[in-house]
């Protein structure tokens, strides 16, 4: 199945409060994304001014290739539905432009203080300008999820008739539940024949589920960001979409998932937004097991508590010894790491000490602390 992936870290991601990438960092991030096999990205918003234009141009001029292939990375720029924004984008030499304007009545009336007809006119002008420059065109509807569906499909149909290559559906405020997304996308896919791209925000924690339901309904493109960086709660994290497609639906998009963590770490440093240790797919602790039941299961058979192997995303499995550990994990740790065979009784007594110490210290135990407790237990035995 052909699903078109676009990363928008460099535009929507950078729009997150307090996040600014330097030109060099933007280029590095683009390079990371291209190398792992992401075919297209939104590199920036040239209308912001000369610095941004320089940054976008340097990505274009790097002539990055996708994965190990000879296929050139498609570089898009973001533009409001204005001729001058599109011109700024074109001057950066990009492959394509994302033309964006709000389509919800709430935005049209209260933000623009305008009419639906005005919105259509603005979009038409911007598309016309983009065509003059020979750009590939994605027409985006901001706040699509709160728009009148009749007006929205009309807007997309108009964009298709004018020559757009793709239309973007934005759940700008992340208000959709997945089944609502499905209904909307199903109707839109009936109205247009060009691919529909999904751009979902995470305000209620459902961005990834919304993307997947949109794909189930017939959308064939996704605009996501690695690590989920974006306005407010961010976007659907690209790594979640890629891994869910691979493991839940058997659709492999050919992305090198072992590169997720390194690229996400780079973005985290450049944006000063740490990756939470529990972040799905790329968090450093998602393969750490402490509780007796889980560790016991993992030691017997990793599939009991892992949906995929840590190697696939370049992480490591860890068995942590702490309050919730059980005797099996202790016995395993002592025999494999310290070469000390523990009998069941010693393990039981050691476990009591371990739990008490972990509660008192409010954390798992270091190896040296474990050894100290082990010695104390042994000496009492003697």
């Amino acid at each position, binding site marked *: 199945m052909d699903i078109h992936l676009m990363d928008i870290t460099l535009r929507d991601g950078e*729009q*997150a*409060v*307090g996040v*600014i990438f*330097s030109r060099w960092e933007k280029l590095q991030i683009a390079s990371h994304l291209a190398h792992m096999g992401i075919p297209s990205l939104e590199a920036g918003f040239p209308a*912001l001014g000369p*610095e*941004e234009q320089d940054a976008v141009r340097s990505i274009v001029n790097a002539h990055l290739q996708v994965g190990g292939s000879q296929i050139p990375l498609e570089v898009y720029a973001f533009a*409001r539905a204005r001729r001058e924004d599109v011109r700024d984008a074109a001057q950066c030499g990009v492959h394509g432009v994302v033309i964006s304007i709000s389509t919800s009545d709430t*935005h049209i009336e209260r*933000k623009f*203080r305008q009419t639906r007809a005005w919105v259509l006119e603005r979009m038409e002008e911007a598309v016309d300008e983009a065509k003059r420059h020979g750009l590939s065109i994605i027409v985006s509807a901001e706040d699509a999820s709160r728009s009148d569906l009749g007006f929205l499909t009309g807007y997309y149909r108009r964009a298709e008739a004018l020559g757009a290559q793709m239309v973007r559906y934005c759940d700008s*405020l992340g208000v959709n539940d*997945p*089944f609502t997304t499905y*209904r909307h996308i199903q109707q839109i896919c009936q109205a247009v024949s060009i691919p529909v791209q999904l751009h979902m925000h995470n305000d*209620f924690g*459902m961005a*990834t*589920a*919304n993307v997947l339901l949109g794909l*189930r309904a017939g959308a064939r493109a996704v605009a996501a960001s690695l690590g*989920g*960086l974006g*306005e*407010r*709660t*961010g976007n659907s*994290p690209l790594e979640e979409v890629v*891994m*869910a497609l691979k*493991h*839940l639906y058997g*659709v492999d998009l050919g992305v090198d998932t072992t590169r997720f963590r390194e690229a996400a770490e780079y973005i985290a440093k450049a944006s000063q*937004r740490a990756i*939470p*240790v*529990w972040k*799905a*797919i790329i968090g450093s*602790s*998602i393969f*750490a097991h*402490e*509780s007796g*039941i889980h560790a016991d299961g993992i030691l017997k*058979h990793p*599939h*009991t*508590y892992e*949906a995929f192997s840590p190697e696939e995303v370049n992480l490591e499995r*860890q068995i942590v010894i*702490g*309050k*919730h550990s059980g005797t099996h994990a202790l016995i395993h740790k002592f025999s494999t790491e310290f070469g000390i065979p523990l009998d069941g009784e010693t393990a039981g007594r050691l476990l*009591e000490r371990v*739990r008490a110490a972990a*509660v008192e210290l*409010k954390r798992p135990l270091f190896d040296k602390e474990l050894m100290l407790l082990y010695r104390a237990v042994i000496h009492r035995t003697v």
Partner: protein
Amino acid sequence: MIPFKLDEGLPEDMLNSPIRHSVYIDDTTLRDGEQTAGVVFANEEKIHIARLLAMLGVHQIEVGIPAMGGDEKEAIKAIVRLELPTSILAWNRAVVDDVRHSLDCGVDAVALSISVSDIHIQHKLRSTRQQVLDAVQRSTEFAKRHSLYVSVNAEDASRADPEFLLEFARAAKEAGADRLRYCDTVGVLDPVETYKRVKLLVDEAGLPVEMHTHNDFGMAVANALAGLKAGATYVNTTVNGLGERAGNASLEELVMALQYCEGICLGFRTSLMRELSEYVALASGRPLPPSKPVVGSNLFIYESEGRASGVVRDPATYEVFLPGEVGLSRRFNVGKYSGPSVVAQKLREYGFHPTEAELRQLVPMLRSRAIALKRSLFDQEVVEEYRRLSHTN
């Protein structure tokens, strides 16, 4: 079972499935949350979190695992002694001895947990389906004889044979169980598959169903909602989504999604959410990301012109709920993506009223400044730049 088909048609009842029944929240921050590798709450922290959860309004608090003994048992007893206006549930393996520990603690409800997938039964339990059925019946009957409310936890239900899961549910019901917890233990469902499986269970088993979902592919909240749409009545949540691996369905996301995506108001004191989230973040040693849905510190800060220009005219353009509803507040910040609306708003806060011409000059200057510094600007930096500009003019 897996892989699911991406392009199959979906039935109308799934696509139009408003939640028409009551929804109950059973929060497990103190059990599954604490089970997270590296997380340990002090006993007094457990007690404080229980208090906050009760104040927020959750219906049941899963407090811990009495069979662990020692400190854990003391913490549970202390929470029971608070006489909070919620049910207090303790987690147990489906073993009579575990339930005895729960009885010692004085809780009114127990979860009796056992795996129901073949992969768990064979590789972890090294047991048989029949032994699983026997264990759940024996422990349920024992708990019911002692008048406990019983939730039977079907661990790894999402990877279980659906026929066996039904058999398990019927056996539990026969033994007197009050509800069944459907666990997507490794987080491998999407909302469509969740809906299908839970609907079958609700229709066929005749037991109230509770959703327990994990976030391994980022879909815990959406899956919990899908389960509710399919007829489940309880949800097992954790504050901040704390939990094994990538965590559980987050309490604050679920409660707000119920209200603003599904139109179900639970009547919770949501203004406590930020405080509760901060407390759990500190106690668990897992800091809240500024982008955390519902309670993240950055959610109501306006920096980019697109959003700010809408919000200064009418917050409804970009806010689904007001910041005060979750204990946050609205603020404007000048950064790279800021334009005249943000800058004007910021200067107004300091008693200045810049003209349009001034803003046209000021915005590119501030933008270059932010890019050069690689950060948003402090208010004073914006004000000084404006002062300089109005002097030169």
